[in-house]
């Protein structure tokens, strides 16, 4: 059964049909939300909230890109949560350990322990720098550079114009670059020198 038919069934109150959509998108939504919230517990709560809100509002969905619609609800839920408690994303550095199951696939037999360690530290640095970005820039950077969405999809998800998306992304990247200069030793040697900003 195609997605549109499943959505129609869910709109009639078929929770089982909706759950099929949840299973299809939960990994995607959770990962985006995790990057925005910056900590696993908050990400879990917001993901659940996003799926509940989406179900309640399912009759407002009038076709089109369901994934973008779902992600818009999820990012709005994150915005609200972050503003409600005026909290910054919590650091997830403790979770980024080599023992974490999420990163098990990263261990490559060809890669020596030193290289693995360097790669892990680079990821920590990127996560740290992402968390330091303002919310709107962080969401845009996550959607583009981590999740790989194109500009139009990001504009749709964040309910903003293409110009705004370009501008936010440019600022986010500039700030990320400045932030990562603080972790210069993690960058390959040829990129360690400061550049003109």
């Amino acid at each position, binding site marked *: 059964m195609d997605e549109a038919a499943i959505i129609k069934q869910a709109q009639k109150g078929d929770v089982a049909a909706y759950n099929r959509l*949840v299973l299809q998108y939960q990994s995607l939504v959770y990962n985006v939300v995790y990057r925005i919230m910056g900590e696993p517990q908050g990400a879990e709560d917001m993901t659940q909230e996003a799926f509940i809100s989406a179900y309640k509002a399912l009759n407002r969905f009038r076709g089109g890109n369901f994934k973008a619609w779902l992600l818009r609800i999820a990012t709005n839920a994150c915005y609200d949560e972050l503003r409600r408690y005026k909290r910054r994303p919590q650091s997830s550095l403790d979770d980024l350990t080599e023992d974490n199951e999420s990163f098990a696939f990263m261990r490559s037999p060809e890669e020596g322990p030193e290289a693995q360690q360097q790669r892990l530290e680079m990821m920590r640095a990127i996560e740290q720098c992402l968390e330091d970005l303002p919310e709107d820039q962080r969401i845009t950077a996550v959607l583009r*550079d981590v999740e790989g969405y194109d*500009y139009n999809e990001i504009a749709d998800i964040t309910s903003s114009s293409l*110009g705004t998306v370009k501008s936010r*992304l*440019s600022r986010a990247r500039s700030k990320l670059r400045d932030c990562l200069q603080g972790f210069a030793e993690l960058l390959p040697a040829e*990129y360690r020198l400061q550049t003109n900003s």
Partner: protein
Amino acid sequence: MFDFVRNLSKSAAEKRQEALSAYLDEALSARQRQAFEQQLADDADLRRELEIQRLIRQQMRALPQRSVPRSFTLDPAVYGAPRKEPLVQAYPVLRAATALTAVFFIVALTFSLINLGSFGGSTAMAPMAADTALQESEIAAAPEMPAPEAAADTAVAESASGAMPAAEAPVETTRIVTEEAAEEATAAEMPAGEAGLALAAPTGTLAPTTTPSELPRPEATVLADSARAATLAPYEAESANVAVPQATAVSPLPTAPSPTPPVWWLAAASGGLLLILLILVLFARRRL
């Protein structure tokens, strides 16, 4: 539209950074890309910056996907059917209302500004008119008298004084009388601006610099008649001296402009409404 406005406020460095970011994503148009590649060829720092940005993006793409900690499926026993869609969607209705209000606001504002252009001269003269009015005559003190009759008397008085030098002395007397009237009017707490504007027209009938074309039409007509009657001045001047304060006092002032044209209120009201609607639209949009 707003992107265009925002671009105007960007610095050259910001524009360069934005172009670099868009180039990295292959989001530049053919012409923009060509121009940027030319810059790249000429600028070693820019090439280096591009390489760093490319590396960072590569590292970000390599961030691992996290596994989902649990299933987020909903319990059918807890959740019933989704909420019914309301018949009238708030967002499109609000958006249409906002657009209409915005158009109305622009029209009202334009009319206000145009009105201000033609109205500005009168309002600018208001303090002067008020001053002159207070010196020469005032409304409230004089006994009631029908307007046309009063205007006629005023006209007769003026024509009499213009035609015969001997009539100047009675005009001075009139001023003394009207100053007293002005004091009484001030005591009656009439708004100064209103009083000034209201009295601008009758004062004009007395002021030597005022041309007949500036006068309200009924008075101007009477003035023409009175010019003909000026030959009878020796006999009528005396009665005119008595009539002047009454005439200026009860003139209906048909052409005196209002100090705040109604269109300003419309512009202000529609502006306020527009603001409220914009807030509601933003709120409704968030709920979509």
